[in-house]
């Protein structure tokens, strides 16, 4: 049995760590590259910035999440919760899609390693991932179902922009009645993204901003909740309160056209 030469292993390891570690000033930030290989073959970058007082902000610049999204991964609420828990284990935080912490000078080295570890571990989401291609087709599929429902009763326009009291808003679809007996129905296809509550709040602002508007106040506002199983219960409850009708579309390959048509009938009643 060959005796392991610890000294040579140590030298070789130290050389490798030294060659894959870099710390330099780039712009206003100090950037540290750590010898932590990610599952997509990168080395983890950590940014060190000074703040007022003698605190340092250490963060990964959102690069882990950027990489996941750029490779087609959909950041669901459960992934966000997982990252949140991961960050807490390393006594840092996960906010605004970024692993970060604020520390005093004597804690900087530990913080750099903690942020680097979280940023590197987050990339494990790529293992076995299948890029989500459903988002655009959901909108298209809903559009087909909507036009099938509208037929001769409504004229359907895509991407309609309206001016509210405070801001300009956009609806994915607006169905204008060909007779004046039924209301106009405006629909937004909402995707949960990484923060379904934010998506619900944006819809809520749109509905509230148009509520007292002479032209658009009478429109029925329909929230189409794409990938409904990915929405948080808080976000779902908010949508139910601010929309005239919520149509839930689960993440399935085929849209249930009959169910959509029934909901649209109720919205236009």
């Amino acid at each position: 049995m060959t005796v392991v030469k610890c000294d040579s292993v140590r030298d070789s390891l130290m050389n490798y760590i030294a060659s894959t570690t870099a710390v330099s000033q780039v712009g206003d930030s100090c950037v540290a590259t750590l010898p932590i290989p990610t599952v997509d073959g990168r080395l983890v970058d950590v940014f060190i910035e000074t703040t007022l007082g003698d605190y340092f902000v250490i963060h990964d610049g959102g690069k882990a999440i950027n990489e996941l999204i750029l490779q087609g991964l959909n950041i669901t609420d459960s992934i966000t919760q997982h990252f949140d828990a991961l960050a807490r284990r390393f006594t840092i935080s996960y906010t605004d899609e970024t692993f970060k912490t604020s520390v005093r000078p004597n804690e900087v080295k530990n913080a750099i390693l903690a942020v680097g570890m979280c940023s590197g571990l987050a990339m494990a989401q790529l293992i076995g991932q299948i890029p989500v291609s459903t988002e655009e087709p959901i909108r298209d599929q809903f559009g087909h179902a909507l036009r099938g429902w509208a037929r001769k009763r409504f004229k359907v326009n895509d991407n309609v922009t309206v001016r509210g009291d405070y801001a300009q808003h956009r609806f994915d679809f607006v169905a204008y009645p060909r007779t004046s007996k039924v209301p106009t129905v405006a629909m937004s296809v909402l995707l949960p993204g990484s923060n379904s509550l934010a998506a619900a709040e944006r819809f809520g602002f749109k509905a509230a901003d148009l509520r007292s508007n002479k032209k658009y106040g009478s429109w029925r506002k329909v929230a189409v909740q794409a990938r409904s199983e990915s929405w948080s219960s808080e976000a779902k409850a908010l949508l139910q309160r601010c929309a005239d009708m919520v149509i839930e579309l689960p993440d399935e390959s085929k849209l249930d056209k009959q169910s959509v048509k029934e909901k649209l009938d109720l919205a236009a009643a």
Partner: protein
Amino acid sequence: MGQIREAMDAEDGSLRRVLRVPGMRGQLRIVIKCRSNSPMCWSMSVILYSNRFDGRIDCIDWEHLFVTMDGARGTGFHRHIWNHQEMSCEKNKIALPQFMPTSVEEFIRQGFDLFGVILQEEGSANDRSQMRFR
């Protein structure tokens, strides 16, 4: 460009759009992430969704330290080049020493030039910008 910025502002600095490629069965989508003011955190990629391959096929991003496809060490912006044998663009990186955007608009314009994406402002204000490959 104004519409792209507007859409990105509404999505916290992110954009995902389908690229029109006439006659193509699969779907190509461009993803841009520019959440912070720092160019070091800006990146964009082209993702293909098809029967044969699902995933990233082209990308521009920033790394402090990376190894180029010919074994050299690089720093800064680089492009991931598709390797048809490996069916991946993750390891084939080429440095982009001339690629030094100072604004998000510049990053998008220069990136689109490299990717061969054409931005078409079409129709009325109600229409979204259309993007397609050259």
